[in-house]
């Protein structure tokens, strides 16, 4: 945990004033990048890599620097001269998983189509060939049962990584996640540990319809005994995956359907991130913007506009959705005295609501203005592209909110 509090201070200020970001460049850009659609799920083959160059670079590559991608340096640094290797987010997840499986034979994967098919988003591609069918177990389509099985396996010594083919499917396993995953360590008086990772793609994608476009963070957050992290860059995806696997606690790792093809250069050396730590994305002075997962990119897009307008926002990817890193968040609040939360979660009872409560309870005296929280609408995600776009927070809204907050 030496890296625990590196979130602040270590970020190179060189790009703090020149963040530039176009969210369209890292989202799965359009249907042409999809080699296959299946049951309303985007299936991205690994050979269908998005060829667009992402505006990465200009980030530090030392181990454990918690800031990452999505910030653009003043100039595009030639990535070939940099150490490390470049990969997409889903490949980073796979790399983390693979390294942990090599390190510990008790680490195994189970879920729908994780084995021979390689995972619907190819996070487990090739692992079955390498580690065998039992370690990368293709399960029947029975979420409640195979999640429960993962819990039973975890209680008896294994470290399973359970993939929900889509996070929404995990609603079918909600009882297992809540009652067993979350509570058994406690109800057993601490006798049984459940070192399980439950992960999968979630969030609002590209017109996937309501059931495949869920924002489940709020559903899971009040389950006691569970940790939740959301990855947002290849760098933190790998580091968080490894940390989640090594954790003795059950961890839900949220991935976002639209971020799998993000590209970034990550270190060749092994690194593990802290599950409990927020990530400073862009230091600033005027307002603290707390965000996570895909909304980080909407925020960074807004940040570009805001900088041009003369604002200096501080952007923090909270990453740990439960528990919150109140140290990093608090330090920022104490500096800027203004907080804007931008989330994709539901408005009611969402992460933003909890975060608002936590900041009010702990840092009320430091606030110069009421906390503003931009969440997605409390509606089932509509199919129509226009309606879907209005469901989640857009960069322009963020700009407006900051302008009002800083008045």
């Amino acid at each position, binding site marked *: 945990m030496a890296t625990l509090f590196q979130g602040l201070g270590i970020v190179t200020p060189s790009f703090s004033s020149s963040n530039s970001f176009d969210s369209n460049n890292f989202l799965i850009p359009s249907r042409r990048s999809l080699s296959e659609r299946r049951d309303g799920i985007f299936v991205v083959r690994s050979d269908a890599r998005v060829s667009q160059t992402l505006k990465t670079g200009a980030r530090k590559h030392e181990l454990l620097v918690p800031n990452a991608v999505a910030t653009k340096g003043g100039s595009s640094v030639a990535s070939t001269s940099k150490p490390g290797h470049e990969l997409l987010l889903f490949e980073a997840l796979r790399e983390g998983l693979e390294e942990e499986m090599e390190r510990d*034979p008790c680490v*195994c994967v189970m879920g729908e189509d994780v084995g021979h098919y390689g995972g619907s988003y190819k996070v487990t591609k090739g692992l079955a060939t390498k580690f065998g069918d039992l370690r990368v177990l293709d399960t029947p389509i029975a979420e409640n049962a195979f999640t429960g099985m*993962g819990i*039973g396996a975890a209680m008896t010594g294994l470290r399973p990584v359970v993939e929900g083919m889509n996070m929404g499917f995990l609603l079918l396993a909600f009882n297992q996640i809540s009652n067993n995953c979350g509570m058994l360590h406690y109800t*057993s008086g601490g*006798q049984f540990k459940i070192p399980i990772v439950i992960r999968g793609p979630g969030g609002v994608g590209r017109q996937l319809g309501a059931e495949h476009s869920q924002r489940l963070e709020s559903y899971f957050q009040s389950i*006691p005994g569970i*940790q939740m992290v959301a990855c947002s860059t290849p760098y933190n995806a790998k580091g968080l995956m490894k940390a989640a696997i090594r954790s003795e606690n059950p961890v839900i790792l949220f991935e976002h359907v639209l971020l799998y093809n993000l590209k970034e250069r990550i270190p060749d050396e092994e690194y593990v991130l802290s599950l409990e730590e927020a990530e400073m994305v862009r230091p600033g002075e005027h307002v603290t913007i707390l965000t996570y997962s895909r909304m980080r990119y909407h925020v960074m897009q807004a940040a570009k506009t805001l900088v041009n307008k003369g604002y200096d926002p501080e952007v923090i990817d909270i990453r740990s959705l439960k528990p919150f890193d109140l140290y990093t968040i608090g330090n920022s609040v104490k500096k800027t005295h203004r907080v804007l939360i931008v989330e994709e979660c539901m408005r009611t009872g969402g992460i933003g609501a909890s975060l608002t409560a936590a900041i009010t309870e702990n840092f009320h005296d430091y606030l110069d203005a009421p906390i503003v929280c931009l969440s997605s609408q409390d509606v089932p995600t509509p199919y129509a592209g226009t309606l879907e776009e209005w469901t989640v927070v857009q960069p322009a809204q963020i700009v407006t909110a900051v302008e009002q907050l800083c008045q």
Partner: protein
Amino acid sequence: MSLSVAKLAQPLPVHDRTMSFLTTTPFLGSASSHKLRFIPTVKLFPRSTSSSTVVSVSRVVKDNKLKSSTHLLITKEEGLQVYEDMILGRFFEDMCAQMYYRGKMFGFVHLYNGQEAVSTGFIKLLKKEDSVVSTYRDHVHALSKGVPARAVMSELFGKATGCSRGQGGSMHMFSKEHNVIGGFAFIAEGIPVATGAAFSSKYRREVLKETDCDHVTLAFFGDGTCNNGQFYECLNMAALWKLPIVFVVENNLWAIGMSHLRSTSDPHIWKKGPAFGMPGVHVDGMDVLKVREVAKEAIERARRGEGPTLVECETYRFRGHSLADPDELRDPAEKAHYAGRDPISALKKYMIENKLASEQELKSIEKKIDEVVEEAVAFADASPYPPRSQLLENVFADPKGFGIGPDGKYRCEDPKFTEGTAHV
């Protein structure tokens, strides 16, 4: 209603597997059907008598018994052990009722009276490394598996010395030491966990190359559970991967107030085993010797790596669903019928008739258990309640899960951590 041999012989893999059962397990040796002993007044569906591939093991047991009338089903030593365990289960539960009415324990308390033959018949055959997954009616499963009565009683009293430190309660008995993987309070949710424990055994043997790992998991659940999806999902997975697990159905005919026959299209639960490619066995759950016979084979089958078995034990609970249940729906005649088939009396009779034990020997066991249960109550009574500092222990195995506080330390490192509330 019954599966035809011809159908099973179709060249589909799962059917091939089923066919292999026919040759390898004594359960399925016969093609005749067996009449279930349900409540006499209730008429079951007319059963086809033609070519059922599944046969109730009680038939097999009966046949064995007839063939070897001189051969006793149990040794004296085993008989006494079994008797003692059943008495422990019965006396313990009776004491629970007393303590509940005396205000020593609270909440929902589901007693096992009447079903002892199942717990004892199965669990006493296990090794310590084998696992048991139970339901909300779990006290006696824990006792049979070796969890001390005082630890179970203390848990019920909500004391810190309870087997789950007072954090579980009646429906959440755990013992890592004895591999009691838990009482599960919701219907069917323990079955996937049991399947996972069985998966671990297979994994340890095949991936981690622990060749001596032949541990078996028993999943106990009731007739009501057999209409829940998790039951079917796990039958499928367990058969698919040949997991070392035995699914033990304690069919006591009632899911609280819902009669099994009113809730289930085909009440023969054991027949659902072959549908998934595993043996399905029906056994008289009021006869511990028959249960043992079936259990032995099912457990050994799992141990040999031949896969799961579904065993339906027809039993009856002598009390209401829980101590809060007025138990007004069940017909007194039905209750009387099963009361007359008390598994403990039956074993006693068998042992005395076969000169395996004297009345005196059995009496002394009862006396001993009386003392054990009394001592358990005294222990529980004298034990301390969990201190306030225990409240936040065990929420996370790694307390870092509580997160980083405003002071930059992990919240659990704050000396006042257990005094305040940990809000996130």
